[in-house]
Protein backbone atom coordinates (compact mmCIF):
# COMPACT_ATOMS: atom_id res chain seq x y z
CA UNK A 1 0.00 0.00 0.00
CA UNK A 2 1.64 3.16 -1.16
CA UNK A 3 -1.08 5.49 0.06
CA UNK A 4 -0.75 6.86 3.56
CA UNK A 5 -4.08 7.74 5.11
CA UNK A 6 -4.11 10.95 7.09
CA UNK A 7 -7.32 12.13 8.72
CA UNK A 8 -5.75 14.84 10.88
CA UNK A 9 -6.60 17.71 8.55
CA UNK A 10 -10.29 16.95 9.03
CA UNK A 11 -10.12 18.57 12.46
CA UNK A 12 -9.24 21.90 10.88
CA UNK A 13 -12.03 21.68 8.27
CA UNK A 14 -14.54 20.38 10.81
CA UNK A 15 -16.53 23.64 10.95
CA UNK A 16 -16.75 23.68 7.15
CA UNK A 17 -18.08 20.13 7.05
CA UNK A 18 -20.53 20.98 9.82
CA UNK A 19 -21.83 23.90 7.77
CA UNK A 20 -22.32 21.55 4.84
CA UNK A 21 -24.14 19.11 7.07
CA UNK A 22 -26.43 21.85 8.36
CA UNK A 23 -27.28 22.80 4.76
CA UNK A 24 -27.97 19.15 3.95
CA UNK A 25 -30.32 18.89 6.92
CA UNK A 26 -32.07 22.16 6.00
CA UNK A 27 -32.61 21.01 2.45
CA UNK A 28 -33.76 17.62 3.66
CA UNK A 29 -36.24 19.03 6.20
CA UNK A 30 -37.77 21.57 3.83
CA UNK A 31 -38.06 19.18 0.89
CA UNK A 32 -39.50 16.46 3.11
CA UNK A 33 -42.16 18.75 4.61
CA UNK A 34 -43.11 20.22 1.26
CA UNK A 35 -42.97 16.82 -0.42
CA UNK A 36 -45.29 15.24 2.14
CA UNK A 37 -47.70 18.15 1.84
CA UNK A 38 -47.70 17.93 -1.97
CA UNK A 39 -48.08 14.16 -1.63
CA UNK A 40 -51.13 14.56 0.60
CA UNK A 41 -52.83 16.95 -1.82
CA UNK A 42 -51.99 14.82 -4.84
CA UNK A 43 -52.79 11.57 -3.01
CA UNK A 44 -56.26 12.94 -2.26
CA UNK A 45 -56.57 13.82 -5.95
CA UNK A 46 -55.47 10.35 -7.00
CA UNK A 47 -58.20 8.75 -4.88
CA UNK A 48 -60.90 11.38 -5.49
CA UNK A 49 -64.29 10.51 -6.98
CA UNK A 50 -63.70 13.16 -9.66
CA UNK A 51 -61.99 11.85 -12.79
CA UNK A 52 -60.45 15.27 -13.44
CA UNK A 53 -58.72 15.34 -10.06
CA UNK A 54 -57.55 11.76 -10.52
CA UNK A 55 -56.15 12.76 -13.90
CA UNK A 56 -54.21 15.68 -12.42
CA UNK A 57 -52.71 13.38 -9.81
CA UNK A 58 -51.73 10.78 -12.39
CA UNK A 59 -50.07 13.28 -14.72
CA UNK A 60 -48.03 14.71 -11.85
CA UNK A 61 -46.89 11.36 -10.51
CA UNK A 62 -46.02 9.84 -13.85
CA UNK A 63 -44.18 12.87 -15.18
CA UNK A 64 -41.96 13.06 -12.09
CA UNK A 65 -41.41 9.35 -11.64
CA UNK A 66 -40.43 8.79 -15.22
CA UNK A 67 -37.68 11.38 -15.45
CA UNK A 68 -34.35 11.20 -13.60
CA UNK A 69 -34.17 13.32 -10.46
CA UNK A 70 -30.86 14.80 -11.58
CA UNK A 71 -32.37 15.95 -14.87
CA UNK A 72 -35.30 17.54 -13.02
CA UNK A 73 -32.94 19.38 -10.73
CA UNK A 74 -30.83 20.76 -13.55
CA UNK A 75 -33.87 21.61 -15.64
CA UNK A 76 -35.53 23.45 -12.75
CA UNK A 77 -32.27 25.26 -11.94
CA UNK A 78 -32.15 26.72 -15.43
CA UNK A 79 -35.88 26.91 -16.24
CA UNK A 80 -37.26 28.26 -12.96
CA UNK A 81 -35.96 31.82 -13.44
CA UNK A 82 -37.36 31.91 -16.95
CA UNK A 83 -40.75 30.40 -16.08
CA UNK A 84 -41.37 32.26 -12.80
CA UNK A 85 -39.18 35.32 -13.07
CA UNK A 86 -37.71 34.43 -9.67
CA UNK A 87 -34.01 34.95 -9.35
CA UNK A 88 -32.17 31.71 -9.78
CA UNK A 89 -30.63 30.23 -6.71
CA UNK A 90 -29.25 26.78 -6.05
CA UNK A 91 -31.19 26.60 -2.78
CA UNK A 92 -34.52 27.38 -4.45
CA UNK A 93 -33.95 25.01 -7.34
CA UNK A 94 -32.87 22.23 -4.99
CA UNK A 95 -35.83 22.58 -2.61
CA UNK A 96 -38.37 22.88 -5.41
CA UNK A 97 -37.08 19.91 -7.36
CA UNK A 98 -36.56 17.64 -4.35
CA UNK A 99 -40.01 18.59 -3.02
CA UNK A 100 -41.64 17.68 -6.33
CA UNK A 101 -39.60 14.49 -6.45
CA UNK A 102 -40.53 13.44 -2.92
CA UNK A 103 -44.09 14.60 -3.52
CA UNK A 104 -44.56 12.22 -6.42
CA UNK A 105 -43.36 9.20 -4.51
CA UNK A 106 -45.32 10.10 -1.39
CA UNK A 107 -48.44 10.63 -3.52
CA UNK A 108 -48.24 6.93 -4.25
CA UNK A 109 -47.77 6.16 -0.56
CA UNK A 110 -50.90 8.16 0.30
CA UNK A 111 -52.82 6.54 -2.54
CA UNK A 112 -51.85 3.04 -1.46
CA UNK A 113 -52.52 3.83 2.19
CA UNK A 114 -55.97 5.20 1.44
CA UNK A 115 -56.75 2.25 -0.82
CA UNK A 116 -55.73 -0.16 1.94
CA UNK A 117 -58.57 0.98 4.21
CA UNK A 118 -61.44 -1.50 3.97
CA UNK A 119 -64.59 -0.53 2.07
CA UNK A 120 -66.57 -1.23 5.24
CA UNK A 121 -64.91 1.74 6.95
CA UNK A 122 -66.08 4.13 4.24
CA UNK A 123 -69.53 2.60 4.37
CA UNK A 124 -69.87 2.80 8.12
CA UNK A 125 -68.93 6.49 8.04
CA UNK A 126 -71.27 7.09 5.13
CA UNK A 127 -74.11 5.31 6.91
CA UNK A 128 -73.66 7.65 9.88
CA UNK A 129 -74.25 10.62 7.59
CA UNK A 130 -70.70 11.75 6.83
CA UNK A 131 -70.03 13.21 3.39
CA UNK A 132 -67.02 12.15 1.33
CA UNK A 133 -64.64 14.74 2.78
CA UNK A 134 -65.46 13.87 6.38
CA UNK A 135 -65.35 10.14 5.72
CA UNK A 136 -61.82 10.74 4.50
CA UNK A 137 -60.87 13.13 7.28
CA UNK A 138 -62.18 11.37 10.36
CA UNK A 139 -62.23 7.72 9.39
CA UNK A 140 -60.08 6.78 6.41
CA UNK A 141 -57.07 9.10 6.52
CA UNK A 142 -56.21 8.60 10.21
CA UNK A 143 -56.10 4.84 9.67
CA UNK A 144 -54.24 5.15 6.40
CA UNK A 145 -51.63 7.49 7.94
CA UNK A 146 -50.78 4.93 10.60
CA UNK A 147 -50.05 2.38 7.91
CA UNK A 148 -48.02 4.88 5.88
CA UNK A 149 -45.56 5.87 8.60
CA UNK A 150 -42.93 3.22 7.78
CA UNK A 151 -43.10 4.08 4.08
CA UNK A 152 -42.62 7.76 4.90
CA UNK A 153 -39.59 6.81 6.96
CA UNK A 154 -38.07 5.06 3.96
CA UNK A 155 -38.89 8.07 1.80
CA UNK A 156 -37.10 10.33 4.31
CA UNK A 157 -34.00 8.15 4.07
CA UNK A 158 -34.10 8.16 0.28
CA UNK A 159 -34.47 11.92 0.29
CA UNK A 160 -31.51 12.40 2.66
CA UNK A 161 -29.36 10.61 0.11
CA UNK A 162 -30.92 12.46 -2.81
CA UNK A 163 -29.93 15.83 -1.28
CA UNK A 164 -26.40 15.14 -2.61
CA UNK A 165 -27.79 15.76 -6.12
CA UNK A 166 -27.81 19.44 -5.19
CA UNK A 167 -23.99 19.41 -5.25
CA UNK A 168 -24.24 19.39 -9.05
CA UNK A 169 -25.73 22.89 -9.06
CA UNK A 170 -23.15 24.06 -6.49
CA UNK A 171 -25.48 24.14 -3.49
CA UNK A 172 -23.22 24.04 -0.43
CA UNK A 173 -24.51 20.85 1.15
CA UNK A 174 -22.30 18.14 2.56
CA UNK A 175 -21.07 16.59 -0.68
CA UNK A 176 -20.36 19.92 -2.38
CA UNK A 177 -18.51 21.11 0.73
CA UNK A 178 -16.51 17.88 0.72
CA UNK A 179 -15.64 18.39 -2.93
CA UNK A 180 -14.19 21.84 -2.23
CA UNK A 181 -12.29 20.55 0.82
CA UNK A 182 -10.92 17.58 -1.15
CA UNK A 183 -9.62 19.87 -3.87
CA UNK A 184 -8.21 22.31 -1.40
CA UNK A 185 -6.47 19.74 0.79
CA UNK A 186 -5.68 17.24 -1.95
CA UNK A 187 -7.14 14.55 0.30
CA UNK A 188 -10.25 13.26 -1.55
CA UNK A 189 -10.11 9.74 -0.08
CA UNK A 190 -10.20 10.89 3.52
CA UNK A 191 -12.76 13.62 2.85
CA UNK A 192 -15.23 11.38 1.03
CA UNK A 193 -14.70 8.67 3.65
CA UNK A 194 -15.74 11.21 6.25
CA UNK A 195 -18.85 12.10 4.23
CA UNK A 196 -19.74 8.42 3.95
CA UNK A 197 -19.38 7.96 7.69
CA UNK A 198 -21.48 11.03 8.46
CA UNK A 199 -24.32 9.77 6.26
CA UNK A 200 -24.10 6.31 7.77
CA UNK A 201 -24.12 7.67 11.31
CA UNK A 202 -27.31 9.60 10.59
CA UNK A 203 -29.17 7.17 8.36
CA UNK A 204 -28.41 3.88 10.08
CA UNK A 205 -30.41 4.77 13.24
CA UNK A 206 -33.18 6.12 10.99
CA UNK A 207 -33.28 2.83 9.08
CA UNK A 208 -33.59 0.87 12.29
CA UNK A 209 -36.29 3.23 13.52
CA UNK A 210 -38.21 2.48 10.29
CA UNK A 211 -37.92 -1.26 10.77
CA UNK A 212 -39.12 -0.88 14.34
CA UNK A 213 -42.06 1.28 13.22
CA UNK A 214 -42.95 -1.20 10.50
CA UNK A 215 -43.19 -4.00 13.05
CA UNK A 216 -45.22 -1.85 15.38
CA UNK A 217 -47.70 -0.84 12.71
CA UNK A 218 -48.03 -4.44 11.54
CA UNK A 219 -48.76 -5.49 15.10
CA UNK A 220 -51.35 -2.75 15.59
CA UNK A 221 -53.15 -3.70 12.40
CA UNK A 222 -53.14 -7.32 13.49
CA UNK A 223 -54.67 -6.27 16.78
CA UNK A 224 -57.35 -4.16 15.20
CA UNK A 225 -58.51 -6.96 12.96
CA UNK A 226 -58.24 -9.97 15.17
CA UNK A 227 -61.88 -10.83 14.60
Amino acid at each position, binding site marked *: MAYTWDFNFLLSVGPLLLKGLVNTIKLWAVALSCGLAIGLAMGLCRTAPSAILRGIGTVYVESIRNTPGLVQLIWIFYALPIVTGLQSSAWLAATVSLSLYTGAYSTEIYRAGIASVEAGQWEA*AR*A*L*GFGYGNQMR*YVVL*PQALMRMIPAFGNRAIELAKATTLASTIAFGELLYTAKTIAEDQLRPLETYTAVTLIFTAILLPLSYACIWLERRVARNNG*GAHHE
Partner: protein
Amino acid sequence: MSEVLRLEGLTKSYGKAPVLKGIDLTVNRGETVCVVGASGSGKSTLLRCINFLGYPTAGRIYLEGKLIGREVTDRAGAKSMRYKEAELCAVRAHVGMVFQQFNLFPHMTVEENVMIAPIKIRGLSKAEAKERAAVHLQRVGISEKATAFPGQLSGGQQQRVAIARALAMEPAIMLFDEATSALDPELVGEVLLAMRRLAQEGTTMLVVTHELGFAYNVARRVVFLHEGTIHEEGTPEQVLVNPTKPRTQDFLRGVTTFRMPEPKLAPADPSNRGE
Protein backbone atom coordinates in the same frame (compact mmCIF):
# COMPACT_ATOMS: atom_id res chain seq x y z
CA MET B 1 -99.83 4.45 14.45
CA SER B 2 -97.46 6.72 12.62
CA GLU B 3 -95.48 5.56 9.68
CA VAL B 4 -91.70 5.87 9.80
CA LEU B 5 -90.68 4.25 6.55
CA ARG B 6 -92.67 3.51 3.41
CA LEU B 7 -91.33 1.87 0.29
CA GLU B 8 -93.33 2.05 -2.93
CA GLY B 9 -92.31 -0.13 -5.84
CA LEU B 10 -88.68 -0.17 -4.80
CA THR B 11 -86.65 -1.64 -7.63
CA LYS B 12 -82.94 -2.24 -7.92
CA SER B 13 -81.05 -3.75 -10.81
CA TYR B 14 -77.36 -4.37 -11.31
CA GLY B 15 -76.96 -3.89 -15.02
CA LYS B 16 -79.82 -5.93 -16.45
CA ALA B 17 -80.08 -8.26 -13.49
CA PRO B 18 -82.98 -7.23 -11.27
CA VAL B 19 -82.35 -7.79 -7.57
CA LEU B 20 -85.42 -6.05 -6.18
CA LYS B 21 -88.56 -6.11 -8.28
CA GLY B 22 -90.92 -3.61 -6.76
CA ILE B 23 -91.00 -3.80 -2.99
CA ASP B 24 -93.89 -2.20 -1.11
CA LEU B 25 -93.34 -2.08 2.61
CA THR B 26 -94.33 0.13 5.52
CA VAL B 27 -92.69 0.20 8.93
CA ASN B 28 -94.55 2.00 11.70
CA ARG B 29 -93.14 3.68 14.76
CA GLY B 30 -92.06 1.31 17.48
CA GLU B 31 -92.41 -1.70 15.25
CA THR B 32 -89.87 -4.43 14.61
CA VAL B 33 -90.14 -5.94 11.16
CA CYS B 34 -87.94 -8.89 10.24
CA VAL B 35 -86.96 -9.68 6.68
CA VAL B 36 -86.09 -13.30 6.04
CA GLY B 37 -85.26 -15.20 2.91
CA ALA B 38 -82.58 -17.18 1.15
CA SER B 39 -79.19 -15.76 0.20
CA GLY B 40 -79.52 -13.74 -2.97
CA SER B 41 -83.19 -12.95 -2.36
CA GLY B 42 -82.30 -9.25 -2.10
CA LYS B 43 -82.52 -8.74 1.67
CA SER B 44 -79.25 -6.84 2.07
CA THR B 45 -79.81 -4.90 -1.13
CA LEU B 46 -83.14 -3.77 0.28
CA LEU B 47 -81.52 -2.34 3.41
CA ARG B 48 -78.72 -0.73 1.45
CA CYS B 49 -81.24 1.04 -0.78
CA ILE B 50 -83.13 2.38 2.21
CA ASN B 51 -80.15 4.42 3.41
CA PHE B 52 -78.79 4.90 -0.09
CA LEU B 53 -75.56 2.98 0.25
CA GLY B 54 -76.91 1.63 -3.01
CA TYR B 55 -79.18 3.69 -5.20
CA PRO B 56 -82.61 2.32 -6.08
CA THR B 57 -83.22 1.97 -9.80
CA ALA B 58 -86.85 2.97 -9.40
CA GLY B 59 -89.47 3.43 -6.74
CA ARG B 60 -90.11 5.83 -3.91
CA ILE B 61 -88.83 5.89 -0.36
CA TYR B 62 -90.62 7.96 2.26
CA LEU B 63 -88.91 8.63 5.57
CA GLU B 64 -91.29 9.95 8.23
CA GLY B 65 -93.79 10.80 5.52
CA LYS B 66 -91.32 12.76 3.42
CA LEU B 67 -90.38 11.60 -0.06
CA ILE B 68 -86.62 11.26 -0.43
CA GLY B 69 -85.30 12.81 -3.61
CA ARG B 70 -87.19 14.55 -6.37
CA GLU B 71 -89.23 12.89 -9.06
CA VAL B 72 -88.46 13.93 -12.62
CA THR B 73 -90.14 13.01 -15.86
CA ASP B 74 -88.05 12.69 -18.99
CA ARG B 75 -89.17 13.50 -22.53
CA ALA B 76 -90.50 10.02 -23.09
CA GLY B 77 -92.67 10.45 -20.01
CA ALA B 78 -90.74 7.97 -17.89
CA LYS B 79 -90.44 8.89 -14.25
CA SER B 80 -87.30 8.57 -12.23
CA MET B 81 -85.85 9.90 -9.00
CA ARG B 82 -83.07 12.43 -8.62
CA TYR B 83 -81.12 12.58 -5.39
CA LYS B 84 -78.88 15.25 -3.93
CA GLU B 85 -75.91 14.02 -1.94
CA ALA B 86 -76.55 16.54 0.85
CA GLU B 87 -80.11 15.29 1.26
CA LEU B 88 -78.91 11.69 1.32
CA CYS B 89 -76.36 12.52 4.04
CA ALA B 90 -79.21 13.91 6.11
CA VAL B 91 -81.28 10.79 5.41
CA ARG B 92 -78.43 8.50 6.43
CA ALA B 93 -77.98 10.49 9.63
CA HIS B 94 -81.61 9.66 10.46
CA VAL B 95 -81.35 5.99 9.55
CA GLY B 96 -79.19 3.81 11.80
CA MET B 97 -77.35 0.97 10.11
CA VAL B 98 -75.72 -2.06 11.69
CA PHE B 99 -73.48 -4.11 9.42
CA GLN B 100 -72.66 -7.77 9.38
CA GLN B 101 -68.94 -6.93 9.73
CA PHE B 102 -69.46 -4.33 12.55
CA ASN B 103 -67.13 -1.85 10.80
CA LEU B 104 -66.13 -0.08 13.98
CA PHE B 105 -63.43 2.55 13.56
CA PRO B 106 -60.31 0.77 14.87
CA HIS B 107 -58.35 3.95 15.56
CA MET B 108 -60.93 5.25 18.02
CA THR B 109 -61.95 3.96 21.43
CA VAL B 110 -65.42 2.48 21.88
CA GLU B 111 -66.63 5.75 23.32
CA GLU B 112 -65.12 7.81 20.49
CA ASN B 113 -66.76 5.52 17.95
CA VAL B 114 -70.11 6.38 19.48
CA MET B 115 -69.35 10.09 19.96
CA ILE B 116 -67.91 11.06 16.59
CA ALA B 117 -71.09 11.34 14.53
CA PRO B 118 -73.16 13.15 17.18
CA ILE B 119 -70.31 15.67 17.56
CA LYS B 120 -69.45 16.20 13.90
CA ILE B 121 -72.92 15.84 12.38
CA ARG B 122 -75.36 16.78 15.12
CA GLY B 123 -73.09 19.46 16.58
CA LEU B 124 -73.13 18.14 20.13
CA SER B 125 -70.42 19.28 22.51
CA LYS B 126 -67.92 16.69 23.63
CA ALA B 127 -69.51 16.52 27.07
CA GLU B 128 -73.01 16.07 25.64
CA ALA B 129 -71.79 13.39 23.25
CA LYS B 130 -69.99 11.58 26.05
CA GLU B 131 -73.15 11.58 28.11
CA ARG B 132 -75.16 10.32 25.17
CA ALA B 133 -72.59 7.63 24.40
CA ALA B 134 -72.80 6.44 28.00
CA VAL B 135 -76.58 6.12 27.70
CA HIS B 136 -76.45 4.04 24.54
CA LEU B 137 -73.50 1.90 25.61
CA GLN B 138 -75.53 1.16 28.73
CA ARG B 139 -78.51 0.13 26.59
CA VAL B 140 -76.45 -2.52 24.83
CA GLY B 141 -74.76 -3.52 28.10
CA ILE B 142 -71.19 -2.59 27.27
CA SER B 143 -70.50 0.49 29.41
CA GLU B 144 -67.45 -1.10 31.00
CA LYS B 145 -65.61 -1.13 27.65
CA ALA B 146 -66.01 2.59 26.92
CA THR B 147 -62.28 3.28 26.84
CA ALA B 148 -61.20 0.06 25.12
CA PHE B 149 -60.27 -0.12 21.45
CA PRO B 150 -62.38 -2.26 19.11
CA GLY B 151 -59.43 -4.61 18.53
CA GLN B 152 -59.56 -5.58 22.20
CA LEU B 153 -63.21 -6.69 22.06
CA SER B 154 -64.90 -9.91 21.03
CA GLY B 155 -67.08 -9.89 17.93
CA GLY B 156 -70.24 -9.82 20.00
CA GLN B 157 -68.98 -6.84 21.98
CA GLN B 158 -67.93 -5.05 18.82
CA GLN B 159 -71.34 -5.55 17.28
CA ARG B 160 -73.05 -4.16 20.38
CA VAL B 161 -70.80 -1.11 20.18
CA ALA B 162 -71.77 -0.75 16.52
CA ILE B 163 -75.42 -0.80 17.58
CA ALA B 164 -74.75 1.89 20.20
CA ARG B 165 -72.91 3.96 17.57
CA ALA B 166 -75.99 3.92 15.35
CA LEU B 167 -78.37 4.56 18.26
CA ALA B 168 -76.39 7.60 19.36
CA MET B 169 -77.62 9.44 16.26
CA GLU B 170 -81.14 8.85 17.59
CA PRO B 171 -82.31 7.63 14.21
CA ALA B 172 -85.92 7.32 13.14
CA ILE B 173 -85.32 3.69 12.27
CA MET B 174 -82.59 1.13 12.84
CA LEU B 175 -81.57 -1.19 10.04
CA PHE B 176 -79.81 -4.45 10.91
CA ASP B 177 -78.07 -6.19 8.03
CA GLU B 178 -77.49 -9.75 9.23
CA ALA B 179 -76.00 -8.36 12.41
CA THR B 180 -75.12 -11.78 13.82
CA SER B 181 -74.05 -13.65 10.69
CA ALA B 182 -70.33 -12.94 11.11
CA LEU B 183 -70.24 -13.93 14.76
CA ASP B 184 -69.01 -17.10 16.39
CA PRO B 185 -72.08 -19.09 17.47
CA GLU B 186 -71.52 -18.52 21.17
CA LEU B 187 -71.53 -14.74 20.66
CA VAL B 188 -74.80 -14.54 18.74
CA GLY B 189 -76.99 -14.61 21.83
CA GLU B 190 -75.65 -11.45 23.46
CA VAL B 191 -76.24 -9.42 20.32
CA LEU B 192 -79.73 -10.79 19.79
CA LEU B 193 -80.56 -10.06 23.44
CA ALA B 194 -79.42 -6.46 23.01
CA MET B 195 -81.53 -6.16 19.87
CA ARG B 196 -84.52 -7.68 21.60
CA ARG B 197 -84.19 -5.20 24.41
CA LEU B 198 -84.23 -2.34 21.92
CA ALA B 199 -87.35 -3.76 20.31
CA GLN B 200 -89.03 -3.97 23.70
CA GLU B 201 -88.11 -0.36 24.39
CA GLY B 202 -90.02 0.61 21.28
CA THR B 203 -87.17 1.19 18.84
CA THR B 204 -88.34 1.11 15.24
CA MET B 205 -86.35 -1.67 13.61
CA LEU B 206 -86.07 -3.32 10.24
CA VAL B 207 -84.04 -6.48 10.73
CA VAL B 208 -82.61 -8.68 8.02
CA THR B 209 -81.75 -11.92 9.74
CA HIS B 210 -81.23 -15.63 9.45
CA GLU B 211 -82.16 -16.03 13.10
CA LEU B 212 -85.73 -17.21 12.67
CA GLY B 213 -86.09 -17.70 16.41
CA PHE B 214 -85.42 -14.00 16.86
CA ALA B 215 -87.89 -13.13 14.10
CA TYR B 216 -90.49 -15.36 15.69
CA ASN B 217 -90.09 -14.01 19.18
CA VAL B 218 -89.38 -10.35 18.59
CA ALA B 219 -90.87 -9.23 15.29
CA ARG B 220 -94.33 -7.82 15.02
CA ARG B 221 -94.32 -8.63 11.34
CA VAL B 222 -92.19 -10.92 9.22
CA VAL B 223 -91.54 -10.39 5.54
CA PHE B 224 -90.37 -13.30 3.42
CA LEU B 225 -88.36 -12.13 0.45
CA HIS B 226 -87.99 -14.37 -2.57
CA GLU B 227 -86.17 -13.44 -5.77
CA GLY B 228 -86.58 -9.74 -5.16
CA THR B 229 -90.25 -9.69 -4.30
CA ILE B 230 -92.20 -9.89 -1.05
CA HIS B 231 -93.50 -13.40 -1.32
CA GLU B 232 -95.29 -13.58 1.98
CA GLU B 233 -95.88 -11.11 4.79
CA GLY B 234 -97.67 -11.30 8.11
CA THR B 235 -97.34 -12.06 11.79
CA PRO B 236 -94.49 -14.38 12.80
CA GLU B 237 -97.03 -17.18 13.27
CA GLN B 238 -98.47 -16.68 9.82
CA VAL B 239 -95.17 -16.54 7.98
CA LEU B 240 -92.86 -18.74 10.02
CA VAL B 241 -95.20 -21.33 11.47
CA ASN B 242 -98.16 -21.53 9.10
CA PRO B 243 -96.90 -20.20 5.78
CA THR B 244 -99.35 -20.50 2.92
CA LYS B 245 -97.01 -19.89 -0.02
CA PRO B 246 -95.00 -22.84 -1.35
CA ARG B 247 -91.71 -20.88 -1.53
CA THR B 248 -91.94 -19.91 2.12
CA GLN B 249 -92.72 -23.48 3.03
CA ASP B 250 -89.70 -24.72 1.03
CA PHE B 251 -87.43 -22.16 2.68
CA LEU B 252 -88.59 -23.05 6.17
CA ARG B 253 -88.33 -26.76 5.51
CA GLY B 254 -84.72 -26.15 4.54
CA VAL B 255 -83.65 -24.15 7.58
CA THR B 256 -85.90 -24.94 10.48
CA THR B 257 -85.33 -28.59 11.22
CA PHE B 258 -83.61 -27.77 14.49
CA ARG B 259 -84.50 -24.15 15.06
CA MET B 260 -88.20 -23.49 14.80
CA PRO B 261 -90.49 -24.06 17.71
CA GLU B 262 -93.44 -26.35 17.17
CA PRO B 263 -96.60 -24.49 16.13
CA LYS B 264 -98.18 -25.16 19.51
CA LEU B 265 -95.34 -23.50 21.45
CA ALA B 266 -96.21 -20.09 22.84
CA PRO B 267 -93.88 -17.13 22.17
CA ALA B 268 -91.25 -16.80 24.87
CA ASP B 269 -92.49 -13.40 26.00
CA PRO B 270 -96.18 -12.83 25.32
CA SER B 271 -96.08 -9.27 26.66
CA ASN B 272 -93.82 -8.39 23.74
CA ARG B 273 -96.15 -9.46 20.97
CA GLY B 274 -97.63 -5.98 20.68
CA GLU B 275 -101.02 -7.25 19.59
